[in-house]
């Protein structure tokens, strides 16, 4: 009986196909199989022995049956695996639906800026790109023949109509149509008659205005510092006195140079700082021009979208934004 078991184990270990299994089954469990033969040998034994012998044969028979079933399952699994292997594909090949499109870095930047200010409770407004001189300058405390007009070289349509040189006219448009408090940003295109490596005759700004009772310069610092730290990461922010005719006090805002970390490099002209924003408390004359009551005041700010995008994505030439080279655009998918 021991030999039969050994023989079976040797055979089943070598079995590779279902046909092998069938043959092994016939050889051991068939009518003339080795196990059946064993039963035949039982005839000459005593009752006790017969009982014992029979028990062992049945054990062997059970063992063989179980082993065969197991082996058969095993073989089936291997088969299945083999047939799947045969269907192998190159999983590194690119997808059917490529993500080939892209959002322009200017739009991407505007969306990001909008999202930050919206989360702070700012509304989003749109303005006109062709504006009256009155809205672009006079209502903003820049009368005709004011030297501040030199800061912005203007495209004119006629004597009173121009391409807006900044998004600030939207301040007036909104304040004329809405009672205080107001709290919004307004992104859009602006135009200046200027074109060189760092200037484009058209570029984008985001304007911001917050008017309510009892707004302080310190609030302006708080809101803009938070915004800049969200947009650029945790950078130092500093406020520097400056001049805009429509704000008083006015400030320019610098962030620690994100290229060199403040050590000084070509991008920050070795100052360690990058100028990114202009802002200030809305000039009393501007509030008077839109007939806002005396108890209201607030702050305004304006930023250049291209500058933010250039710093964020490390773009070194403003021309790239408007050439629309697909190789450039597709980097922003």
């Amino acid at each position, binding site marked *: 009986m021991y030999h039969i078991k050994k023989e079976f184990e040797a055979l089943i270990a070598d079995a590779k196909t279902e046909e092998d299994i069938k043959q092994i089954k016939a050889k051991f469990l068939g009518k003339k199989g080795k196990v059946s033969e064993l039963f035949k040998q039982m005839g000459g034994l005593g009752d006790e022995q017969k009982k014992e012998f029979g028990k062992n044969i049945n054990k062997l028979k059970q063992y063989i049956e179980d082993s065969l079933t197991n082996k058969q399952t095993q073989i089936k699994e291997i088969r299945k695996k083999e047939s799947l292997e045969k269907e192998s594909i190159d999983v590194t090949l690119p997808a059917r639906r490529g993500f080939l*499109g892209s959002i322009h870095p200017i739009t991407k930047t505007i969306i990001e800026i909008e999202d930050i200010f919206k989360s702070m409770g700012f509304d989003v407004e749109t303005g006109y790109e062709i504006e009256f001189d009155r809205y672009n300058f006079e209502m903003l405390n820049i009368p005709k023949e004011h030297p501040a007009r030199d800061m912005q070289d203007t495209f004119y349509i006629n004597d009173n109509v121009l391409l807006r040189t900044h998004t600030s006219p939207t301040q007036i448009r909104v304040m004329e149509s809405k009672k205080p408090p107001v709290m919004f940003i307004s992104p859009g295109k602006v135009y200046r008659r200027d074109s060189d490596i760092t200037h484009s005759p058209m570029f984008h700004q985001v304007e911001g205005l917050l008017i309510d009772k009892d707004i*302080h310069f310190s609030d302006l610092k*708080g809101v803009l510092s938070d915004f800049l730290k969200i947009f650029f990461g945790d950078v130092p922010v500093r406020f520097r006195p400056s001049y805009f005719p429509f704000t008083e006090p006015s400030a320019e805002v610098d962030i620690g140079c994100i290229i060199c970390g403040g050590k000084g490099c070509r991008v920050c002209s070795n100052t360690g700082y990058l100028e990114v924003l202009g802002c200030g408390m809305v000039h009393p004359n501007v509030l008077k021009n839109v007939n806002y009551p005396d108890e209201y005041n607030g702050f305004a700010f304006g930023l250049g979208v291209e500058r933010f995008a250039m710093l964020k994505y490390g773009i070194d030439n403003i021309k790239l934004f408007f050439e629309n080279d697909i190789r450039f655009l597709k980097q922003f998918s």
Partner: protein
Amino acid sequence: MKVSYNWLKEFVDIELSAAELAEKITMAGLEVDSVTKIDTCGSVVGEIVDITEKDNLYLTKVDIGSEVLNIATADKNVNLHDKFPVVKEGALLSNGVKISKKKFGDFVSEGMMLSAEELNLEDSSSGLLKLDETLRNGMALSEIDEFNDYIIDIELTPNRADALSILGVARDIKAITKKSIKYPKMDFALVEKNIKNYISVKIDDYKNCPRYTLLMADVVVKPSPMFIRLRLLKSGIRPINNVVDITNYVLMAMGQPMHSFDFNRLSGDICVRRAKNKEKILALDSKEYELDESMLVIADSKKPVAIAGVMGSEESSVTDDTKTVALESAHFNPVSVRMTARKLKLHSESSHRFERGVDPNLCLTASSYAMSLLEKYADAKVYMGYIDQKETEFKPKTIVCSFEGINRLLGSDFEQKAVKEIVEYLDFKPKVISIDKFKVTIPTYRFDIEGEADIAEEVARCMGYDKIAPTLPVVQTSFKRKKPVDYAKHQITKTLADMGLSESVNYSFTDSSKLKLFSKNEDEFVYLKNPLIEGQDVMRTTLVCGLLDNLKFNMSKNAKSAALFEIGRVFFKDGDFAKESDRLGAVMWGEASFNWIEGRRFYDFYDMKSVTEMLEKLFNIEFLYRKTERKFLHTGRGADLFVGGKDVGFIGELHPDFYDYYDIKFDKNMRIILCEVDLNSIAEYVTRVKMFEKLPKLPTVVRDLAVVVDKSINASDVKRAIGLFDNVYEVVLFDVYDKLEDSSKKSLAFRIVLKNDDKTFVDTEIEEIMNNIFNALVKKFDAKLRG
């Protein structure tokens, strides 16, 4: 404005290095662009001890203390015993030039004498930089104060006219570092001649010339001493002669523009008047200007001798032969000067200052300073008396401020004492008038200070903006409901990018000659009065021009395909003003796919149609596609888009004739497909919420139907006719076949999903419905069953 660090130190004590000073004044509102140390390139003082002329070249021997060098120069103005900066062979100039030995026949030049240009003090010099004769030969230039200096370039904001001088900047340094101002000596002797016997002044227009002063002196014209020439060079002004240089020197030092006339070249008395129409003047820049009645001039009895506040005339100017000068120091109206300078396109140091505002009380102080310098450096004999024409005194204004008001605006907690001290150092003479109120008297040079907000800014900038701690406001505000277009713009952008298009951003102005090709109505064009370049002279009325430019640009970069879109404004004339509208434009061209799954396929009309269908889905609208009437589209492959009977855009292939305009070769496989939709026009038809439609209660049944119709029949009409039947739940056009025997026909195959809400269909009912559908198609489109 460029200011010399050493010169500043003459007006105020400075304990900071040039770089520290720059940082300090930047943070107080005088933004420093750059600080540059003067690079003397290792040069030393050299004296010419011998000159030989040979072939327009001067072969000199130059004593530099330790040795005598042979140096050749082309400068004609070299004289024996003149001293110049000298570098030996091997020296490296700041412009990168390395000095080497040069041979001129037998003469070997062993070094070089330098001009201001080579020391980076001037853009282009006409001759060598002459040094004072008292300097020791061989002395390093870097040991001389005027060379051991920094040039601080300040980018002044237009409100700070008061800081357009050394004195002005020094005043700010004084206020922020709490020091005091040191004024230069301004005394001089007088001779027994009285100006009143020689000249008189009449002002016709006090509004534009509130004050005019004149002093006179006999002078000896010669070159200025080195320190004056160097200080002017450091300020960006070219030295001329001592008289002109000194007026410029005082302009830089104090901010008062002055003009010196050669008295003997004036005819009669001075009159400040408006120019006559077409009156001409030859200005100091040797150009002739034609004036008009809006402009103010200084005239003698015959003709204008200066454009007031802008520039003097050449004919009355000081020359080497001048013996007597009349020195003008006046005050002109900023608006008048600015208008004149802008009209004439003539800008000067003088007009720059008058436009921004010059202290009307500075005239005589400045001319006294000038006379004291002329006495010293032009042997001036100053006449007794002076002319001072004015109608009124120029009194400083006063402002009442509140300490609390200042702190509230700033969100700060500054003590009264600290605020008062700052205001005192600004020379605003504060006077406390109540517990919270104080009165300030604003010096007449501070044109920018008008109210409490301005005082608050002065306090904040002198304290430092960093002394105000950031806070966050609490605002109660209400939000407006937005137009659907405003909501949708970013969503369209994101969806189109997902669909494989790339977003472009183009200039809003374009080439009118190109725009005309794409426009029905040129009368609507908004032209720029002053375009930057010819090809950007008109505001776009379509996005197509820009997108085609982008396509062309990318073709030039060997792109094999392009699918671009833009969302932007277009502009139309509206009386004197303009109407603006937001548009979506798109262009497709070239390989739609070039990959291992689909192989190579080119963009066609139906790729673009996914853009218009996306809009239909997004806005819940339906476009009517009508055969196009736009001349730039392919007549058989283009459609005008209508919503609510209104033309809102188009979709289609560019007309083959139009490829020429863009210099693109027409390739029938690589067609250019365009699309444009006016977002504002469709906005009014948008229903934002599409209501839920109940799902069929009972199982639906699917049947296919293929019909043959004339090629001219629109598949969408057939589909719509099927959809009209009550039981039809969904119709899908799944095949179009147009290679039938009868080439005028095409076969359309539809999958029709039928529903019945009352009971389950029986076969006969389905058959009946399908028959009814087919019969309707026969009736309407002369359809036949596909055999």
